[in-house]
């Protein structure tokens, strides 16, 4: 084997960038050490102040230790809930290039020479600086227990940590998390999601000791135990034991007991990363942290420190992202020559741990003198709410566990006298005294709604849509806990009407049709249309939409299930009208259903014979079926007679309805498969076939986590686990790809089907016209959490009805093509010319290409016809 040649290591970014040995030019150089969330926010703050190379104001160099640019560490766990590392990125793809910032990824700073004002990177590159900003963050604290370095011990801090845990977990059955704080519970959720039996070991007498009090801890404990996690509080970890091969086998606890575990995650707090600062002689705190003043300046005026590595002027090290963002803004403002100060921050948090809402804000522990607690506790339901009230009635803080709905309005009210009696705010609905819905309207303009980005209600109310608020103020783009309140502050859109004919949205029309049992378009137009549109013909937008709504509800409202019966015939787009897909030259294509992509050789032969006999172009589709192109209208019934005789049915490729449920070959054949994905795909495709929806629906089932069926690119995707099925929703390919989000995991066959029933019917009920599940999920208030509440937890009490609607659909399904070819009346429309039923369409012609046909476009390419004079219309 040849010896490897040693070359100096250069990063990809560095090779394109300005040479680092470049002489000082007129502009100052700012070197940023660390590219985490706070580092990136600092760069954005520089850019906002025009302090960038692109603006000609500074050279900006960033040294990043991790192999990828800044990502959303707060949502690390969501990586397991179906987000990819790319989804977590916080950096717009062209951010660095646009601002001319030099980012060196995977090349951390190793030394600072303050006298010579240079930073040395691990690659050996030396960067001179005028201003140095340390944003090195923190590292996980690993208690010094014997065995802590055994194979199978991890920390939980970076995407790389997660990837390592994920890989190791494949050979593990049981895991333990040391630390029952915020991150520890996140890590425990991740281990559970990986299918491990999970223990949480917390030294304090309760979970999340920093954020919640005893009562909150008890409510949290009960809920988390109900989820199947084993919690050990009030015990320490004495030793991690390992086997002969050096791999973890268990843990010894301080109460004398032991746990048999295969994997241990340490999440016992974090410590500031101040090593670089110590080594270059900057002042650091006794218990760590780089000492900074209110301007975030260290003991060297040319050096700043921001985020979790800094010991701030109020004597604290902040482990939350919002204070870090504040420091980033302060440092950028000061470096830009302005005035700014960081004097301390709000430690309020709201998060969803394992599906449980936990929030604490203000003086959560009632530390202020004379404060009184108002507490509501229902340990059975896992709900705990405490408000801390000052002697004068001022809201000082609170803890909410199990139901943190009110966090968005209560936190901004901290420091004010509540407008209603506090007990009314904590009592559950239906109880005598309350609750009083304290909407965001009650908040003063100066109330901070988004604490991550320090945005007030007044600033938010200057905008009228959520996307605009996010873009202009950044509110709602941090932890996201304020999104609901922002949504409530937005004015309702002026006219959400479907088209010029109806002042209602599609979902409103759905409700009208459902509740009034409307079965006719003209009846709906004349009763609920806009004044000026009543008595008219509707339009190309509302007719198919209403046709689809009536078809979705046909069995329930008593309309015909056949989409071309009676008046419905006039509502359908041409594809639905001819039950085939119109192509560019006026010919149609045909897609027989091939459920799950499974097909017998006999059926394959029939498709081949039909295509050959009618001279059709054949192509395999992306949905694991076969498309036959080039049929004339008059050929459609003849072709379908052959297909129906061979056992095929409509594939609904023409409809806004279920297309296909793709599958991989699954456990039956594949050595990796853990479930029968093909059977599940077939069952689902047959269940939902023909279901009319706001847009097309695609699905897939993968037989294992390798995901060969690409289920996460589908509206609803199913991935097998050893325990059952994980259900993902809202995926999409196309122009705006989106990975589907995990809705629920480890479902049995029956649970899976029931959940999909509810999900699809809820989507059909509430989506806009031509709104795919991905866009719908992004749009609706509360997003995925709301959908999960509705379809999993039945928060609206709708589930029974949704299931019944789907049962009606399944029972009422009939194959449209079988019904068509067996009915002479219905067949009458399948002629090209009403006055010459036997004449083929002379404008549909083909020419050969690669042994098949293609449309003869020259035939269609004639000039636009001259307008003939209108001689008069009589009737």
């Amino acid at each position, binding site marked *: 084997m040849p010896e490897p040649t040693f070359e100096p290591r250069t990063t990809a970014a560095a090779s394109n960038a300005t040479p680092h040995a470049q002489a000082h030019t007129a502009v100052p150089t700012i070197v940023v050490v660390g590219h985490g969330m706070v580092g990136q926010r600092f760069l954005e703050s520089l850019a906002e102040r025009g302090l960038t190379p692109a603006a000609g104001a500074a050279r900006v160099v960033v040294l990043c230790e991790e192999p990828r640019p800044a990502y959303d560490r707060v949502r690390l766990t969501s990586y397991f809930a179906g987000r990819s590392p790319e989804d977590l990125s916080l950096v717009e793809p062209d951010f660095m290039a646009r601002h001319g910032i030099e980012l060196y990824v995977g090349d951390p700073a190793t030394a600072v020479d303050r006298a010579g004002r240079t930073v040395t990177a691990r690659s050996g590159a030396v960067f001179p600086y005028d201003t140095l900003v340390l944003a090195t963050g923190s590292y996980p604290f690993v208690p010094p227990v014997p065995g802590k370095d055994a194979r199978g011990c991890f920390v939980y801090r970076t995407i790389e940590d997660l990837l390592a845990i994920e890989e190791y977990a494949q050979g593990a059955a049981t895991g333990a998390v040391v630390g029952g704080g915020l991150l520890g519970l996140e890590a425990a959720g991740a281990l559970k999601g990986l299918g491990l039996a999970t223990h949480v070991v917390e030294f304090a007498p309760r979970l999340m000791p920093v954020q919640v009090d005893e009562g909150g801890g008890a409510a949290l404990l009960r809920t988390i135990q109900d989820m199947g996690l084993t919690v050990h509080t009030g015990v320490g970890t004495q030793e991690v034991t390992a086997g002969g091969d050096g791999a973890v086998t268990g843990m010894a606890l301080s109460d004398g007991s032991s746990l048999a575990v295969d994997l241990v995650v340490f999440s016992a707090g974090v410590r500031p990363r101040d090593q670089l600062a110590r080594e270059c002689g900057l002042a650091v705190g006794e218990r760590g942290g780089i000492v900074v003043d209110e301007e975030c300046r260290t003991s060297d005026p040319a050096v700043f420190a921001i985020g979790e590595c800094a010991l701030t002027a109020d004597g604290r090290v902040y482990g939350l992202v919002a204070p870090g963002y504040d420091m980033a803004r302060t440092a950028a403002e000061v470096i830009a020559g302005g005035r700014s100060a960081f004097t301390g921050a709000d430690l309020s948090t709201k998060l969803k741990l394992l599906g449980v809402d936990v929030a604490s804000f203000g003086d959560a522990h009632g530390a202020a003198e004379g404060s009184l607690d108002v507490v509501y506790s229902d340990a059975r339901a896992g709900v705990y709410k405490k408000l801390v009230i000052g002697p004068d009635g001022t809201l000082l803080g609170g803890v909410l566990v199990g139901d943190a709905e009110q966090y968005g309005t209560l936190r901004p009210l901290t420091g004010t006298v509540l407008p209603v009696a506090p007990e009314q705010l904590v009592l559950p609905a239906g109880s005598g005294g309350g609750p009083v819905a304290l909407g965001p309207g009650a908040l003063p303009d100066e109330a901070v709604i988004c604490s991550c980005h320090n945005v007030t209600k007044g600033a938010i109310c200057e905008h009228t849509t959520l996307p605009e608020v996010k873009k202009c103020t950044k509110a709602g783009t941090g932890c996201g806990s304020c999104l609901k309140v922002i949504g409530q502050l937005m004015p309702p859109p002026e006219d959400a009407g479907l088209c010029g004919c109806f002042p209602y949205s599609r979902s409103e029309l759905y409700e009208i049709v459902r509740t009034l049992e409307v079965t006719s378009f003209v009846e709906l137009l004349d009763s609920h249309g806009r004044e000026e549109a009543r008595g008219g013909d509707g339009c190309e937008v509302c007719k198919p939409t209403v046709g689809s709504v009536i078809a979705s509800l046909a069995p329930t409202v008593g309309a015909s299930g056949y989409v071309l019966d009676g008046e419905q015939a006039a509502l359908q787009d041409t594809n639905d009208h001819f039950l085939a897909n119109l192509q560019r030259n006026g010919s149609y294509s045909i897609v027989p259903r091939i459920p799950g992509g499974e097909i017998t050789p006999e059926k394959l032969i029939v498709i081949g014979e039909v295509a050959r006999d009618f001279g059709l172009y054949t192509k395999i589709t992306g949905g694991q079926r076969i498309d036959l192109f080039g049929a004339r209208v008059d050929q459609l019934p003849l072709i379908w007679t052959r297909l129906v005789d061979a056992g095929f049915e409509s594939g609904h490729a023409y409809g806004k309805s279920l297309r296909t449920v793709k599958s991989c070959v699954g456990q039956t054949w594949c050595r990796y498969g853990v479930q029968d994905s093909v059977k599940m795909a077939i069952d689902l495709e047959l269940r939902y076939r023909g279901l009319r929806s706001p847009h097309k629906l695609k699905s897939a089932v993968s037989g294992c986590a390798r995901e060969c069926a690409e289920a996460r690119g589908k509206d609803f995707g199913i991935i097998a686990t050893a325990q059952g099925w994980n259900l993902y929703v809202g995926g999409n390919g196309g122009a705006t790809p989106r990975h589907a989000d995990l809705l629920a995991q480890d479902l049995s066959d029956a649970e899976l089907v029931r959940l999909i029933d509810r999900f699809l019917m809820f989507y059909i009920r509430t989506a806009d016209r031509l709104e795919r599940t991905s866009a719908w999920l992004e749009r609706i208030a509360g997003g995925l959490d709301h959908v999960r509440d509705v379809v999993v937890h039945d928060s609206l009490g709708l589930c029974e009805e949704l299931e019944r609607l789907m049962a009606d659909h399944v029972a009422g399904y009939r194959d449209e093509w079988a019904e068509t070819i067996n009915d002479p009346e219905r067949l009458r429309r399948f002629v090209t010319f009403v006055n010459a039923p036997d004449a083929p369409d002379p404008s549909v012609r083909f020419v050969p290409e690669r042994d098949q046909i293609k449309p003869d476009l020259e035939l269609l390419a004639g000039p636009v016809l001259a307008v003939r004079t209108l001689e008069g219309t009589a*009737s």
Partner: protein
Amino acid sequence: MATATITTARGTGSVRLAHGEDWLTVCERGLLIPGRGVAVLLPDGDQAAVFMDRSGQVYAIGNRDPFTGAYVLSRGLLGSAGGRPFVASPLLKQRFDLATGACLDDEEVSVPVFAVRAD
């Protein structure tokens, strides 16, 4: 009430189209579905699209969609805006006024209009 409107629209007479000096009989009036169209093959090989609106009024325009060259306008959906009937091309959805042939989405474009009689 709505159903009654449709019933009156379904007469038993025939639909005729002006073609040069003659009136070409196209089909029975009852074959037309309110809100939809049918294609007609003309003796010279050209094609027309004939529509009936909700009130029973019948219209005829050229069947060729000038935006794509395909003979498909008869398969578009009929609608009305401001009391004027139009058809939306089934391919790229441009709308054409059924009474004048003018494209409502591009004033440079229009399609031919045929005189039509439905007894």
